[in-house]
C-alpha cells in the first residue's frame, strides 16, 4: 500500500546522469566518513574506555593492538575520517543558513574541505608524534 499510485512515477536521476563535480565527492565522502566513524571510531573509543575501566592489563592489550601497523592504519584512518567529516560538516552548517550555494564558492569549499581534513589530520599526528 505504501507504493499505491507510485509505480509509474519518474525516478530521480542517479549518479551516472550527472557530470562529476567536487560537490558530489564531498557529499559522498561525508556519508562514508560519518558511517565509518560510527562503526570503527566509536568501536575503538569503547575499546579504549573499556580497557581503561578494566585496568592496566586490559589497557596493555589495547595499547599493543593500536601500535601494530594495522592499529596505526586504523587510528590514522579514524582521525582522517573525523577531520574530513568535521570539515564537510562545517560546510553543511554554512549551507544550512543558505550561504555558499553560488557555483564558484560552492566548488571552492567542496575542494577545500577534504584538503583541510587531510591537513588537520597531518597536524594532529605531527603534534602527537613530535611532542
Amino acid at each position: 500500500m505504501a507504493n499505491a499510485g507510485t509505480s509509474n512515477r519518474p525516478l530521480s536521476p542517479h549518479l551516472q546522469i550527472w557530470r562529476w563535480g567536487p560537490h558530489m565527492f564531498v557529499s559522498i565522502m561525508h556519508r562514508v566518513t560519518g558511517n565509518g566513524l560510527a562503526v570503527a571510531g566509536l568501536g575503538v573509543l569503547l575499546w579504549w574506555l573499556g580497557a581503561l575501566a578494566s585496568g592496566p592489563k586490559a589497557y596493555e592489550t589495547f595499547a599493543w593492538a593500536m601500535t601494530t601497523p594495522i592499529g596505526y592504519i586504523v587510528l590514522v584512518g579514524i582521525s582522517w575520517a573525523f577531520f574530513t567529516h568535521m570539515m564537510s560538516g562545517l560546510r553543511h552548517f554554512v549551507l544550512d543558513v543558505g550561504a555558499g550555494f553560488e557555483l564558484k564558492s560552492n566548488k571552492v569549499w567542496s575542494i577545500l574541505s577534504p584538503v583541510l581534513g587531510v591537513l588537520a589530520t597531518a597536524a594532529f599526528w605531527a603534534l602527537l608524534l613530535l611532542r
Partner: protein
Amino acid sequence: MGNGTSIGRVRGLGSAKSGTHHWLLQRFTAIGNLLLLLWLAASIVLLPDLSYASVADWLATPVPAVAMILLVVSSFWHARLGMQVMVEDYVHEHANKFACIAALNLVAFAGAAFGVFCVVRLALGAHA
C-alpha cells in the same frame, strides 16, 4: 501510509515522518560533537603520554570525566541519527528497514551505556 488520498497520506505521515525534528537533532548533536571531539583531540595531544597511569588519572578527574560522558552520549546519538538516514536510503523493503532500525537503536543505546559506565567506574575510583 494508509489507503487515503495523496494529500491525506502526506498530512498524516510524510515520507520523512518527522523530518525537521530529526534534522535539528542531527545539528544539535553535531555542535556537541564538534566541541567535545576537539577537546578530546587537544587532550590526547596535551597529555604527557598515553600510558595507563596518565590517561586513567586524567579521566578520573571531574571535568574530563563529565566531558567524556557527554562525548559518548552526543556521538552515539549523532551516529544513530546518521546511520538511520543511511538505512532509510538503502534498505527499501519495509520489514528489513524496521529490523535494521531496531538493531541500530539497540546497538546505539548499548554502546552509549557501556561507554558511560566505563567512565563512571573509572572516575569513582575502581582502581584508585
